[in-house]
């Protein structure tokens, strides 16, 4: 399953699954709501039953610990002051390049544009073959076939947004058809959007059912990324609830945003989602990835996000199987910084490819 980052960690064993029960409070609190015995071998079973009905799901999500906005933002800001230099910086830049989901999601996308993007993803810096490939290219469903051709033979995945991206305002049947189309065309990953309207109306079960239906449509081949559009959920409590809702419903990745609204990925909302995947694994043994998307444009920003990953979820997530950047312009800045580290000089935008 791992791809282009493998050369960074040649002999890395698969991440260990920690003993469950670190967050056993949830298990205790919801034991009365579910039928599993409290000493269930894996809390995942208990958590599955959390979605047994609208009311159990609601009580679970509303029973998650609150988020203090000031404290969360202060922690994210303080991790942003880490000073990553020399060897650590070189490692972080290569890792970040290997984590990019190189994205084009425009009405004006053409096969030519998508081919150019695919070529760039496979070989981001044609002048330096030691540069890792990006993790994936991310396109609309009708461009999946073109993208697959463009990255054929490489480790680069093809991710496709689906489910009436970015608004998600369509009938479920339409959304599922959208997903099936993309999967049939060969998409390795599906980036779905949740129904924010249903979430904000408190209709969590509808959101849950939709995610499980999409997950089913993804089959066993495509990994599912669930986009919350955190800018529209607006409160950190909502983002934490959405994160748990997505993970309970079977998300392989939780993703901040579409990149199409005013507020996209921020250090604080990404930190919060990293806490959620960390706690979810502690309780269920299931590891879920995180993808901040939109608004990350500079290497400096990307390195800050990697520091968040390192000091929150931990090094098990420092791998493009578990962490991604949804970005387009970020890659060129990473490449320029990489050239600077190698040569000691800043090059300039004419020394990286425009795509």
């Amino acid at each position, binding site marked *: 399953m791992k791809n282009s980052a493998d050369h960074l960690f040649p002999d890395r064993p698969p991440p260990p699954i920690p003993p469950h029960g670190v967050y056993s409070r949830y298990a205790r609190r919801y034991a009365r709501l579910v039928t599993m015995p409290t000493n269930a071998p894996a809390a995942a079973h208990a958590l599955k039953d959390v979605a047994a009905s609208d009311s159990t799901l609601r009580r679970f999500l509303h029973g998650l610990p609150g988020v203090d906005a000031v404290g969360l933002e202060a922690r994210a800001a303080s991790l942003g002051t880490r000073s*990553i230099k020399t060897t650590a910086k070189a490692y972080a830049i290569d890792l970040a390049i290997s984590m990019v989901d190189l994205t084009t999601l425009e009405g004006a996308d053409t096969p030519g544009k998508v081919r150019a993007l695919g070529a760039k993803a496979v070989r981001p810096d044609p002048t330096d073959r030691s540069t890792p490939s990006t993790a994936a290219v991310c396109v609309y469903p009708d461009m999946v076939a073109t993208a697959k051709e463009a990255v054929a033979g490489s480790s680069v995945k093809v991710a496709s947004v689906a489910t009436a991206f970015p608004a998600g305002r369509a009938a479920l049947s339409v959304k599922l058809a959208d997903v099936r189309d993309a999967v049939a065309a060969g998409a390795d990953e599906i980036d779905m959007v949740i129904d924010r309207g249903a979430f904000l109306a408190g209709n969590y079960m509808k959101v849950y059912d939709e995610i499980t239906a999409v997950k089913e449509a993804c089959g066993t081949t495509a990994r599912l990324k669930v986009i919350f559009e955190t800018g529209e959920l607006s409160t950190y409590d909502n983002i934490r609830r959405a994160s748990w809702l997505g993970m309970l419903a079977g998300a392989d990745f939780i993703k901040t945003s579409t990149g199409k609204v005013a507020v996209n990925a921020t250090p604080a909302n990404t930190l919060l989602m990293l806490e959620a995947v960390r706690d979810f694994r502690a309780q269920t043994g299931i590891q879920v990835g995180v993808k901040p998307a939109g608004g990350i444009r500079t290497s400096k920003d990307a390195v800050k996000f990697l520091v968040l990953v390192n000091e929150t979820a931990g090094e098990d997530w420092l791998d493009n199987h578990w962490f991604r950047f949804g970005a387009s312009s970020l890659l060129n800045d990473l490449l320029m910084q990489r050239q600077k580290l190698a040569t000691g000089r800043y090059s300039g935008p004419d020394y990286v490819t425009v795509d």
Partner: protein
Amino acid sequence: MASVFAYAPAPESRSIVDIAPSYGLFIDGEFTDAADGKVFKTVSPSSEEVLSEIAQAGEADVDRAVKAARKAFEKWSALPGSERAKYLFRIARIIQERSRELAVLETLDNGKPIRETRDADLPLVAAHFFYYAGWADKLDHAGYGANPRPLGVAGQVIPWNFPLLMLAWKIAPALATGNTVVLKPAETTPLSALFFADICRQAGLPKGVVNILPGYGDAGAALVAHPDVNKVAFTGSTAVGKEIARTVAGTRKKVTLELGGKGANIVFDDAPIDQAVEGIVNGIFFNQGQVCCAGSRLLVQESIHDELLDSLKRRLSTLRLGDPLDKNTDIGAINSEEQLSRITSLVERGEAEGAERWSPACDLPESGYWFAPTLFTNVTQAHTVARDEIFGPVLSVLTFRTPDEAVAKANNTPYGLSAGIWTEKGSRILAVANKLRAGVVWSNTFNKFDPTSPFGGYKESGFGREGGRHGLEAYLDV
């Protein structure tokens, strides 16, 4: 933390600060030797390197400094407030301009991480001068009647944990209200005060308004006892505070004392857990726990004890201890050998009394004074580590069952400086805060300081308030 993502060393350059091989006492606008010629050395606690040789003030020097301050008082106090404000604003701006230099200096002399001196100490120091500069011409409106008068010469003795910040807390309100100052910094951290003396000269402050006397306890005692001192301000240990109270008893000297603490950080079961963990860490490991208002007693509701402790231990494992000048260091050095041995002996006592000791895996540097972040669990109110101020990176974890029990345990201490409340329930914050006998109560945060907010203690944590409008009263004849 051995990690695939190991941060390379990122030390702040010390070339920005130029430490002279020796410094004198700062009396009447000039650096001079001590009358008896005595000197002492100041060392960097992280490396035990001798930084400089400092003139050591004695009784004769104290007398000389008080006389200089007395002489300067007449003109200084007669200046219009707006004129005094100009000097204070100028000092504040110079501090901002020289903040990187002062941050590196403070880190070298004190041992605390550059992250703290750069992001906490220095911004607060400048803010304090700016804040009291603003008061200087508005004293009529401070609530102490028309034209409130200064006291005269203030004798001030400050500790080593926040050398420059404590200086700011003392000097800024004193000058704004028209007093003149003789200040004795701690013997382990005299350098930033001497750099401040240079800033006073740079700002053109009239001679004698600020006098700095590095020295030991005997100089502090002489200053406090000097008959021509009108005001005594002290921050430090409760034992010395009691001594000072005895010395000034029966005189007309006005006194403020800011002494020790054993702050309770109360975490209810509906707290925002991740932020509470950050707050606990910030409460006790900020400045290696060498903070009088540290949240050194964690009172956690029994129903979330295990979960919170797991989270806390995981978080402590990510703390980075080492070179204080490295920008990624979270935990620096203990200020002195003496303090290190005090912490060590109290921790040994905690273990001997049966409390369970835990520290994350953490390599201590070979030279310098270091102590790993430490947790004690299974602690009761009867344990020494729950009662005595340790003044180090040591947290005692106690549990409670109900809000009433939390309040009773939090208040069950001779101290009363700070407390913290963690809950998402606003009504509980208000109800509990009203019952806590502590001068500062933080809710859903800890160790947050602001010049506009008064700070001070109940009971053996001292009396008088520093900061805010309340802080003016200590320097006015009201």
